[in-house]
């Protein structure tokens, strides 16, 4: 008996052709225009430092955690920021458990480049004691559902989680002033991270030689398109990273056009993220009252947010 080869998802010839022909008249199967982004919804169900982003059918969860570690020898005054991706077979049967696929690696690298190398997060403020203790920030990105354009969704999830993350306040004490005291959240208000700017990843898809260009491809479109390019830009108009890993070649002027589009989209997405974060923080502040006298109950309440 022949099984359904690993439950593979298949696209028919009809669909492939339809996606292309419909795009020639600027129609996409979900009713969007070529340069229209899907609806983004950002939720913070698990409290500080975690976010869940839904972009159409794509869902990504971002979780930020921090740990006190010894800094790297060559950068004794800087905290670290690392990104981990989890592509579980839950999101898509084509993801294999265990081994990170090429897509997982690429996604991690794009987000890493956008966030770290553009110095979006101030790592110097994460230093507690030079050469001894710095905060190591870890971003975990879990892909929950693959509806296409994972990179953009994961990037938004990472940013939203970073913006809501609070680390405990620390101070130096002890006899020689070399001892680190970590203050519990009920004693001192935890501190947010310093995020200088928000690098937003915008993914474009290229189709064939007709020069069709679209933004935010869905799963089906990703299966048909000949090339993709992710541009990470911020609302100030700076380019933080670009990734176009081969595939269909595009003329230079198209790249410049993409840049313009990306910049305008980045502005609106930045606003959406900021609004969502603000709404959450306000709500959170109303709910949590961290009195010096407060007990564990309050902490739990905070976690349940």
């Amino acid at each position, binding site marked *: *008996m*022949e*099984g*359904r*080869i690993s439950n*593979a998802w*298949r*696209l*028919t*010839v*009809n*669909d*492939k*052709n*339809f996606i292309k*022909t*419909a795009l020639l*008249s600027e*129609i*996409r*199967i*979900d*009713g969007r225009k070529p340069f229209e982004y899907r609806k983004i919804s950002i939720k913070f169900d698990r409290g500080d430092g975690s976010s869940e982003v839904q972009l159409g059918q794509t869902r990504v969860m971002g979780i930020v955690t921090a740990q006190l570690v010894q800094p790297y020898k060559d950068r004794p005054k800087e905290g670290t920021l690392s990104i981990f991706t989890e592509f579980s077979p839950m999101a898509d049967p084509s993801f294999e458990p265990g081994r990170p696929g090429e897509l997982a690696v690429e996604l991690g690298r794009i987000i890493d480049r956008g966030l770290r190398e553009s110095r979006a997060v101030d790592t110097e403020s994460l230093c507690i004691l030079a050469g001894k203790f710095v905060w190591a920030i870890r971003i975990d990105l879990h892909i929950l559902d693959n509806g296409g354009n994972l990179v953009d969704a994961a990037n938004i999830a990472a940013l939203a989680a970073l913006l809501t993350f609070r680390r405990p306040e620390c101070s130096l004490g002890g006899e020689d002033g070399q001892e680190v005291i970590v203050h519990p959240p009920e004693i001192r208000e935890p501190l947010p991270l310093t995020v200088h700017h928000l690098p937003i990843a915008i993914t474009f898809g290229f189709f064939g030689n007709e020069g069709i260009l679209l933004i935010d491809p869905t799963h089906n479109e990703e299966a048909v398109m000949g090339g993709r390019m992710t541009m990470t830009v911020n609302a100030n108009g700076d380019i933080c990273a670009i990734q176009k890993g081969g595939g269909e070649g595009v003329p230079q002027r198209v790249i410049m056009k993409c840049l313009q589009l990306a910049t305008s989209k980045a502005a609106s997405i930045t606003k959406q993220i900021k609004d969502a974060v603000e709404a959450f923080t306000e709500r959170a502040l109303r709910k949590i009252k961290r009195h010096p006298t407060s007990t564990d109950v309050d902490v739990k309440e905070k976690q349940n947010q």
Partner: protein
Amino acid sequence: MENKKSSSPAGFIDSTVVPGDVVLDLSSMTNQTIKIGGGLRQDCDAISVMKAGTLRFSKPNKYWVESSQKRYVPCVEDTVLGIVVDSKADNFLIDIKGPALAFLPVLAFEGGTRRNIPKFEVGTLLYLRVVKANFGMNPELSCTDVSGKAAEFGPLKDGYMFEISTGLSRKLLSSPTCPILEALGKKLSFEIAIGLNGRVWVNATSPDIIVIVANAIMKSESLSTAQQIIMVEHLLKNIQ
């Protein structure tokens, strides 16, 4: 499966049943033949439910559980939409969303002989009929109706195929015509093929009609009849 029975099938008909419910007690029935369909099983004298859904009864003696799911379990005489996965010497391998790939014998076409075997590219969409569906075997398909005529079966050209739940596809196929299709059909002209395996193919002269029809159907998944009509009207208003 045939059984003797006598009493009436309790108040389960047209109500929701869950796995484990015993809907019929055969010990209290004699001199009657019943036929049981998908979602029901016989444990000695008890007919119990295996799937959550609605118990249906059709005169004179058929019982089955109707449920809506993304998975498709092949059933004889279902019409389905299949995707060609591979072609072998004797069979085409077809994905019909079932647990196993289905076989379409290369001769199962109208007037099919060894000399005129059709050629299908991988990924071709076909409208098919399930001929055999036995447990532990690959289902077998055919491109002809019972009398061996091509009827409407065969490859579907162009258009767009999308997936819905099996329940919705059954609703779309039911008579009288489903309100969504009726409402859409009044304003737009399009061609549609619905497979009981939860696949729908739509074709029209212009891509925007296809997109509207496809989205209307996909969105109606969880709507009531009244809501469906409102949604379609709303959609159609937007495009004019």
